[in-house]
């Protein structure tokens, strides 16, 4: 019996040895074993060269699970709208974007949706989803992903797979472009820091804040959002006296509020606390530091009029950073046309802002998640037009994308040398309307913001963190250039 077992072990050992041999001896100077499975190239799944004659095989990366799972419909709809508007696509359903579309074509090149990736806000999962889209379904163009860490992972994937072309969705981390610098990864929107730009200038030079305390979620988006504000506020001469970082998912913020200076010790507070934490943190502030006086607070995109439902109208007066689009009070002909196009494309879509219940598509379209994926879709269409639908020369195609300047409903967007968006940031304020309700009113548009903040952030600097960036004065290109907005009309 033991002899038989030994024989069996021997058999397994021999096969293991063969495996080693097969793995080892295959490697030649070309660093390839020559097996079918040894293709790193995109489109390897069906053996067809990516970017060949068969047109655009598009994969969209969204999130159907996790904290942003509710935006899955929104983001797919964003890209679909761009293709419906400019490439003749027809959605397969009038009540959902997730059913896909058909008939998209630009300059004679068809655009086929091969799949929609389902992320869960983790980098591991999104890498597996993109591999499925590219390596199994043969996608050669990817639009997405949605959130910060995913963006870094996908940019890395793009760098390792130069045959694909990625238009980022709405992922807000800096590093995906600033540090990874994949030549085939393009971001036609801002990042978490950019969306806080101009706020410091406004608060210091207009509202007279000299000192500020910052409280932000202790993870990459919180750090990045706070970093943009700190860089901006310090650049114009302000001082950040306190930085507090509660862990993501905190429900009782009282101990973190206690670490903040009192309202009489500081001119104001900047909040980058997201999700359900925004309200919980502000409530803890009321309990620990006294009533809210809106004039003394500013927040990133997580500040919105709904906070007044629980906190009362004391929040009125707070300034709010931007997020890709502008609040609803700004209505230019371009914005109206964009929102009308969304309503014409579907009867309803169950977007996140309507609680995933059917609602007019323009509700979702006016928010940043939808819009980020829309800008990516427009970039895809315009880049194909720029090369006459021929993407066989990928270098020329990527060069054409880099040179694009998109004339979009919420402002012009071009790319910097790292292929990241130079965008206009809309700053707003929570104010009381005539009926005494808190509404969001646009106060200024800061044009031409890029992700380096005049050199604060560069490929050689660390990622935004608890201590970075330090508070330093420096010249920012957009200081003093903010365009005031009065009653929803940009002045100038």
């Amino acid at each position, binding site marked *: 019996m033991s002899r038989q077992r030994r024989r069996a072990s021997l058999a397994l050992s021999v096969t293991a040895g063969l495996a080693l041999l097969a793995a080892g001896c295959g490697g030649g100077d070309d660093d390839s074993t020559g097996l079918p499975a040894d293709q790193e190239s995109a489109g390897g799944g069906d053996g067809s060269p990516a970017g060949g004659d068969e047109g655009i095989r598009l994969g969209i990366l969204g999130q159907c699970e996790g904290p942003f799972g509710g935006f899955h419909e929104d983001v797919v709809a964003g890209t679909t709208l761009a293709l419906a508007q400019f490439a003749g696509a027809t959605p397969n359903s009038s009540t959902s974007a997730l059913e896909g579309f058909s008939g998209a074509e630009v300059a004679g090149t068809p655009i086929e949706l091969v799949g929609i990736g389902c992320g869960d806000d983790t980098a591991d999962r999104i890498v*597996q989803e993109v591999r499925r889209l590219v390596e199994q379904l043969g996608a050669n163009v990817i639009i997405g992903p949605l959130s910060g860490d995913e963006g870094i992972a996908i940019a890395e994937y793009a760098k390792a797979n130069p045959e694909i072309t990625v238009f980022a969705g709405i992922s807000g981390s800096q590093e995906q472009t600033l540090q990874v610098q994949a030549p085939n990864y393009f971001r036609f929107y801002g990042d978490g820091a950019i969306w806080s730009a101009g706020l410091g200038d406004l608060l210091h030079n207009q509202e007279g804040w000299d000192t500020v305390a910052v409280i932000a979620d202790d993870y990459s988006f919180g750090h990045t959002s706070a970093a943009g504000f700190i860089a901006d506020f310090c650049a114009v001469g302000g001082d950040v006296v306190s930085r507090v970082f509660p862990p993501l998912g905190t429900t009782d913020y009282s101990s973190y509020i206690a670490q903040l200076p009192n309202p009489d010790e500081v001119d104001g507070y900047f909040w980058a606390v997201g999700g359900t934490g925004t309200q919980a943190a502000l409530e803890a502030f009321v309990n620990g530091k006294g009533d809210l006086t809106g004039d003394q607070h500013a927040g990133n995109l997580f500040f919105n009029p709904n906070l007044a439902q629980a906190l009362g109208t004391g929040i009125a007066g707070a300034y709010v950073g931007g997020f890709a689009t502008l609040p609803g009070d700004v209505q230019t002909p371009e914005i109206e046309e964009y929102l009308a196009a969304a309503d014409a494309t579907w009867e309803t879509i169950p977007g996140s802002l309507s609680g995933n219940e059917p609602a007019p598509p323009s509700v979702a379209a006016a928010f940043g998640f939808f819009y980020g994926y829309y800008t990516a879709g427009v970039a895809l269409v315009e880049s194909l037009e720029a090369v006459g639908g021929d993407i066989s020369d990928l270098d020329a195609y990527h060069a054409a994308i880099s040179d694009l300047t998109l004339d979009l409903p919420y402002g012009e967007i071009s790319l910097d040398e790292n292929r990241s968006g130079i965008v206009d940031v809309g700053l707003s304020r929570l104010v009381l309307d005539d009926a005494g309700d808190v509404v969001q009113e646009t106060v200024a548009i800061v044009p031409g913001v890029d992700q380096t903040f005049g050199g604060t952030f560069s490929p050689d600097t660390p990622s935004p963190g608890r201590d970075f960036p330090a508070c330093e004065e420096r010249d920012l290109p957009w200081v003093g250039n903010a365009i005031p907005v009065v009653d929803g009309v940009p002045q100038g």
Partner: protein
Amino acid sequence: MNLRARLTGEPLALAGLVLFLILLPSLATAFFVNFVMTQTLILGLAAATIVFLSRYGGMTSLAQLLMFGIAGFMFGNAALDGGARGLNLGWHPWAAVGFAIVVTTLAAVVLGAIASRTTGIYFLMLTLVYGVIGYFVFAQIVEISGPGGITSIQRPDLLGPPVRLYYAGLLLSVLAYVGFRALRRTAFGLALQGVRDDPVRMASLGFNVPLHRTLAFVLAGFVAGLAGLLNVWWNGQIDPASISIGPTLILLIIAVIGGISSLEGAWLGAFVYVLVFTYLRDLPLVDRIGITEARFNTVIGVIVLAIMVLSPEGLTGIARRLPVRTIRKELGGTRA
């Protein structure tokens, strides 16, 4: 004779399977080999350490994914050079491999020594605590984990082409399988099984029960660390969410699906898990009955539930019983 037939049949079938897997890259698509099968081998290797501890040591561990993660993080910290994330030690990749394995094994020594005096549900709880603490260590000490994870992790040049990673996974899987099987009949393995069955009697016979448990835990940690290295090479990145409670439970579920009492079940469970996550959505009409990507965990849950009810020994238990039943049926048929 039946016993003898099974003894020779099973290893030969496994050897045939290994041979088939060696030839697979010439037969299957790149995606199937480099994605589905490579992931299967990596997860299977990690899950096999759970099976090993459970089957031979009577310890159901939830700390194996932590070991997997420690190795990945340590390799990332040691091998990366420059950039914004991690320690950026910039070592030679194989030095980084050594470093990752040493740190993982040392962590297993410490954690195993502490856990070695507990059994059953207490061991499970304690290793769950390890997993949770480990997650928070990497989530909070951002110097060694990012912040937000370590990205751009490159494979050593030797494993450059993706198919070699598959072969590395296959080789390590075969070695782990053969090694664990062989260990069972060594003095240490026999003592370990004695410890599993009756620790009090083993202690009274003079065996150092905690030491045996610790050594088994260290060995399992070492192998899980190897799987963790393969994983960061395959995935190119690792972040604290990679070792959070969700993936930790998934690894246990993989072991349960395959059959927590059989080593080969670890790879079988991993295969089923990867198949569900990769191909379920391609089935026609599957989304019409509400099984969208967001509900894959529900499907996995239903599979686990069905297996627990129908065959506590997992899929390998079902597979083992099938031929026997068929034979019995045939015998019954001829008799009748």
